[in-house]
């Protein structure tokens, strides 16, 4: 009973904080502040992964997203002196308003879809565990071919980034 109460408490804190920090990320005008709020969102989502017994995914989230990808973002922001180029405060135009309304309609659609879907949750006695061992067995067994393709994709990403960022000799 106490464990379930604790899970609810962690879920509420992590979900409210993730929504709050994502809203802060969207509304801050300085891109460096946006990046730091995005790191907060990523870490609270990692906490939610722990709550879902996905320990491997949680660790990867912290290492890959909060570590590597956000470091890349901050590096590029510093590199092109974006922190000086703060967006001017503009009043909300009609096009933006229409776009926001349409996106909120998408949210209503998600809620309607969720409430119409017959979600039947099976509750096994032993909850499913997403630790590194079971994920690794699946990755190197059933999903070996997609795994190799993902590695080729990453290689192409590395080569592409280097080719694009290289200074042209003229």
């Amino acid at each position, binding site marked *: 009973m106490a464990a379930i109460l604790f899970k609810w408490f962690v879920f509420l804190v992590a979900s409210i904080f993730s929504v709050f920090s994502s809203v802060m990320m969207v509304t801050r005008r300085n891109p460096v502040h946006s990046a730091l709020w995005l790191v907060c969102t990523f870490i609270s989502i990692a906490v939610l992964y722990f709550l879902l017994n996905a320990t491997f*995914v949680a660790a990867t989230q912290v290492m890959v997203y909060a570590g590597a990808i956000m470091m890349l*973002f901050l590096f590029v922001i510093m*590199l092109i002196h974006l922190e000086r180029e703060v967006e001017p405060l503009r009043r909300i135009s009609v096009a933006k308003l229409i776009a926001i309304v349409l996106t909120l309609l998408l*949210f209503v659609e998600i*809620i309607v879809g969720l409430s119409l879907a017959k*979600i039947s949750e099976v509750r096994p006695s032993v909850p499913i565990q997403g630790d590194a061992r079971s994920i690794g067995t699946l990755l190197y067994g059933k999903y070996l071919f997609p795994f190799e393709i*993902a590695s080729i994709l990453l290689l192409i990403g590395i080569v592409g980034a280097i080719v694009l960022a290289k200074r042209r000799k003229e």
Partner: protein
Amino acid sequence: MLEVPATLFLLLSGVLFVVGAIGVITRRNGIVVFMCIELMLNAANLAFVSSTRLTQGLEGMVFVFFVMAVAAAEAAVGLAIFVMIFRLKGTINVDEINLLKG
């Protein structure tokens, strides 16, 4: 009292996705638009992981692994493209990047 239902996790991922989508269409700074796309990918990942509660298989977590690989490659290439655009035009305001407009 029951455990936290998977529907709540799916609802939260919907909220995060919509916040990211609003950011994509309202912000004009290219890198912030990119960060909002990362947030949307994360919301999809959260939906994938919470789907393991419903299917009783680990496939959702494996898909999250692949989404992360694609996101990492996309971030590297995309940011390189933004560095190029900044060198070319001196700005990354997405309203002023209109070279492809005929």
